């Protein structure tokens, strides 16, 4: 019996060491990918080998460099109009990032304000906001996006609006819970006893303690927004062509799957990679920052 326990002990220690490395990898690798993504998006004009809209009909449907018939001129191949897939993917990063970041700012601000209001004021205000939140969360975002795209016309701000119009509700619900918990906490009571004003309490005590949840939420949301934007672009209600977006690139290649698989494949992999990184970063942050989830 003692022997088997010894073995278990060793195994477990090994596990925790692996766990540590894995945990740190879960931060380093995604962070690197994000850094690369930001770099590409910002400097796409300088580093992309071709402009995103430069067509070259004689060289259309060129496979990637490592496939027979491919060339290093177009590392990831060309699409049906002969445009360079790699360059378009680089410019596509601009769209994905700018749309998601702007949408995140909007939703986080609106959600935080409404969430704190709801949690702090309670009563009927709370009941009303939370009913709206319930409905907003249950509403299919794509349907709303379609309605919006058609009613105010497709474009950058339509996409941002369509992404934000429901997503604030998720923040509001989480932030409300936190604000409610904090409002009833001993240290807020103590601040009141000491004579701190409600404004000071919200700013110095409640807000800093909500930051964790907010940052985690934001990180986890990057992926959601990138996916949603891609979905809209795929349906043709994203940012109008010829500006490339990963979603529309997948759509472009959809009819040529048998002859040019690379057009749809690479943008999809990119989306997956970036969203995966965002989710991993979020999980890592949650483990690190939220002591309630941290184990002994």
């Amino acid at each position, binding site marked *: *019996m003692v022997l088997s*326990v010894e073995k*278990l*002990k060793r195994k477990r*220690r090994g596990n*925790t060491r692996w*766990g540590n490395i894995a945990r740190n990898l879960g931060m380093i690798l995604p962070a690197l990918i994000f850094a690369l993504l930001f770099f590409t998006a910002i400097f796409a004009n300088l580093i992309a080998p071709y402009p995103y809209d430069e067509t070259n009909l004689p060289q259309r449907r060129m496979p990637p460099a490592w496939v027979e018939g491919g060339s290093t001129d177009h590392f990831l191949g060309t699409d049906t109009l002969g445009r360079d897939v790699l360059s378009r993917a680089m410019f596509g990063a601009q769209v994905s990032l700018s749309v998601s970041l702007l949408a995140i700012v909007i939703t986080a601000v609106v959600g935080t304000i409404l969430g704190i209001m709801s949690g702090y004021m309670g009563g009927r205000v709370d009941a009303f906001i939370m009913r709206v939140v319930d409905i907003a969360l249950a509403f299919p975002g794509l349907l709303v996006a379609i309605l919006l795209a058609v009613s105010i016309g497709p474009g950058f701000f339509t996409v941002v609006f369509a992404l934000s119009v429901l997503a604030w509700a998720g923040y509001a619900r989480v932030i409300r819970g936190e604000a409610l918990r904090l409002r009833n906490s001993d240290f807020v009571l103590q601040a009141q006893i000491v004579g701190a004003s409600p404004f000071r309490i919200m700013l110095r005590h409640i807000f800093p303690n909500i930051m964790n949840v907010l940052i985690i939420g934001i990180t986890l949301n990057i992926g959601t927004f990138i996916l949603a934007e891609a979905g809209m672009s795929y349906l043709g209600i994203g940012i109008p062509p010829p500006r490339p977006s990963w979603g529309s690139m997948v759509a472009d290649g959809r009819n040529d799957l048998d002859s040019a698989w690379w057009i749809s494949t690479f943008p999809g992999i990119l989306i997956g990679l970036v969203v995966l990184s965002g989710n991993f970063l979020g999980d890592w942050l949650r483990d690190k920052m939220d002591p309630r989830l941290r*184990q*002994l």
Partner: protein
Amino acid sequence: MSNVVLQVENLHTSFFTRLGEVKAVDGVSFYVREGETFGIVGESGCGKSVTGLSIMRLLPEPGGEIIEGKIILEGKNILELSKKAMRAYRGKMISMILQDPMSSLNPVYTIGDQISEAVKLHQDLPDNMVEAEVVSALRLLRIPDPEIRTKEYPFQLSGGMRQRVVGSIAMSCRPRLLIADEPTTALDATIQAQYLALFDDIQAKTNVAIIFITHDFGVVSRICDRVGVMYAGKILEAAPTRDIFKAPKHPYTKALIDSVPRLEVKDERLYSIEGQPPSMFRLPPGCRFRPRCPVAMDICGEQEPPEVKLNEDHAVSCWRVK
């Protein structure tokens, strides 16, 4: 000597965490006789609850592990039992009452469901008899209107009543050993007094052996026959309750008893033990109480003191005691 129901020998239980091994229970031995109440007193983190869970073999997984030792229940070392055999022991031979009555009942099942579950599992009874068993378990804990209670949900009962229901579940199959882990800590003073009185009653009716885990000397004085004083994973002194109060031998026991304010005596100033219990990750060398001990000697920091038996029931681990 009357029947020894449980004998724990040299029990070591550890937790393996990211920060390293915690020896939560570090060589604990004691026994409990039939119809006797053995108290384990100690401060938070001293390992008293882990001792209880080790005996149930319900340590949190993964992480908790019994490293060595023997837990002999009615002559059988239960550490050698298979998981399945151990399950048959739980609820039937050994049972347990947990600290917080507000969270230890399943909110979505009725009281009757939760008691009858244990009855059906361990006793081969026809359905109409099960009902009667459930009511008798509730009666044992003096729960008023037991027939009505069986149909109620936990949230409909007060804290004191819930804790009685937890007691009924634990006693429903008349186990030989009952482990009570701070069962009255969450209760109000007068309700606590009611609950403690029930233990005498239960013991008189069933002759069950009880291990009572607590941090409260008041509770100890009320219901324990013998006490083990636990500190940082070890029982430093074990003796009949009377001796612990009247003639404590270990400096920690003495200090702890002196630092408790007493209602009967008006002290001007309380004796206080300086410092805090050691971190379980870094225990001091030698005697674990040495850094706070007022009468420490050189040897205390070098070697762990052996257990000295003053008589059959009184054991102390201290270099000062010969």
